[in-house]
């Protein structure tokens, strides 16, 4: 009769041939191959310090008749290490998801159990079909002062382990990166690039929970990024691009008030309009950097976001401008 046996890496394994006596004459095979008698102690099979390669099917046959007396499937593995658990809200205020993984494989099947406790209430985290190690929760209440406590327990035949994370509703908010980022040259403007993007589709309510954006861009030939923070709108015109140089551009998003910045969007490439007929729009061509006259390569004034004149684009509100408003408001209180 068939059987599965789980053993730890490095353990010593003793297999008995079913109900056969110790001194019976038997032959053991591993995956069909006869095992040498040196591994036998009577009719028992001794495997010392097992490793992963010794996983497989072990069968025991009675000496003369070749009747199959016992069969087992040996799976060598490890008990689980402490799992890695991450919870995040990319769809605020709808809810959040938690995803997990093991830092090292166990080589045997594992089962996961997740519990979410909010104050005194236990909430159900619905397992996602895909990806597998993920579940999601809907918020029942918003603006909670009580933390969420999520515990993940992983169990297998050789042991168990768990980890817990505790967090406030606001700290795990992190949108997905902006989508459909497009950068285009502006005709007859050799220093401009027009960038536009869309809110991530997972963000359910940009009207009530607006996003702000962070744009970074640099010519391929330089390492230093330039940054622009935008509180409004999903487009921006870069006005200080080096003429004729290919640029790499990325955008990130963040809830206006809470949480952290998203990962950077997929990078897009664009080159400002030039008079010559070569069109280096979106192909990543290695530009002729050294041959180009570096003497004309003067760094233009960096787009200071506080300099009102430099900021172009619908609704781009510079950070300093808002700070000035706040200070003015606060100053008024002391009148």
């Amino acid at each position, binding site marked *: 009769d068939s059987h599965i046996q789980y053993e730890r890496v490095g353990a010593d394994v003793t297999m008995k041939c079913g109900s056969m006596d110790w001194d019976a004459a038997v032959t053991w095979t591993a995956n069909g191959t006869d095992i040498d008698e040196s591994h036998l102690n009577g009719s028992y099979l001794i495997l010392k310090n097992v490793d992963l390669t010794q996983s497989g099917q072990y069968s025991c046959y009675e000496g003369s008749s070749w009747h199959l007396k016992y069969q087992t499937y040996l799976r060598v593995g490890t008990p689980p290490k402490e799992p890695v658990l991450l919870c995040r809200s990319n769809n605020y205020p709808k809810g959040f998801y938690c995803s997990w993984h093991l830092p090292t494989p166990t080589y045997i099947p594992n089962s996961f159990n997740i519990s979410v406790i909010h104050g005194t209430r236990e909430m159900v985290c619905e397992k996602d079909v895909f990806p597998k190690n993920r579940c999601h929760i809907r918020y029942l209440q*918003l*603006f909670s002062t009580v933390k969420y406590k999520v515990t993940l327990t992983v169990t297998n035949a050789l042991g168990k382990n768990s980890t817990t994370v505790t967090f406030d509703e606001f700290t795990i908010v992190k949108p997905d990166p902006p989508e459909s980022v497009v950068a285009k040259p502006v005709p007859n403007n050799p220093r401009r690039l027009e960038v536009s993007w869309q809110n991530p589709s997972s963000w359910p309510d940009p009207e009530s929970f607006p996003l702000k954006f962070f744009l970074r861009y640099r010519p391929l030939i330089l390492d230093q990024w330039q940054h622009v923070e935008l509180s409004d709108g999903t487009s921006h015109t870069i006005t200080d691009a080096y003429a004729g140089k290919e640029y790499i551009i990325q955008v990130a998003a963040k809830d206006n008030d809470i949480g952290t910045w998203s990962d950077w969007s997929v990078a897009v490439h664009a080159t400002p309009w030039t008079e010559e007929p070569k069109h280096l729009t979106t192909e990543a061509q290695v530009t002729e950097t050294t041959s180009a006259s570096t003497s004309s390569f003067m760094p233009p004034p960096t787009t200071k976001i506080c300099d009102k004149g430099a900021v172009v684009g619908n609704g781009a509100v510079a950070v300093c401008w808002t700070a000035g408003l706040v200070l003015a408001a606060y100053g008024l209180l002391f009148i």
Partner: protein
Amino acid sequence: GDSWGIFTFLCAALCNLPALPALNCTEELGAGQSIQKTYDLTRYLEHQLRTLAGTYLNYLGPPFNEPDFNPPRLARAERVPSATVDLDLWRGLTDNARLAANYRAYSRLLCYLRALDGQAGTAELRHRLGHFCSSLQGLVLSIAGVMSSLGYPLPAGPPAPPGAPVAPNDFLKKMEDFWLLKELQTWLWRSAKDFNRLKKKVPPAVVTLRLEARGF
């Protein structure tokens, strides 16, 4: 014993303050009073609170200043209206209800914060608390101004807190301080969202002063 009676009296007195200056100040601040300004104030306060709360919690000492500290909410009557709300209910709030909820909450929070003032440890901490309370009063006035200019009546001043349930020991008193700061922080997060919604629904041009109609 006695000090709590004095405290209750003081709180009642302090709590009625915000309502009075509002009647005079809205005339001076005039049409400048806007939802945007109120929103900016909540963001400013939220940033200030981070430093203040850190310092105050350190003053309270462990476990209150531990990042994972997650105590259960005691079943006492909550002193301050909680920011926590059902999502659909929050979405469906009228502008008046939304503003009133903010006004009531901050009036109460201001009152309790002012009470903290006298007892806090170092002079530095008391100074910071005082500074924060001034800013918070500014927020209350700002909200009052928005309500007035939109023609909404100001909610009645907060009732004096019940004298009876008083923290029986030092630890529980510290626990109350902890929850006060937590509630304040959560309200500031919520207000940013409240005023975002108001911004969208009430364009700045509409926010004009209609003091004449109110008979001020």
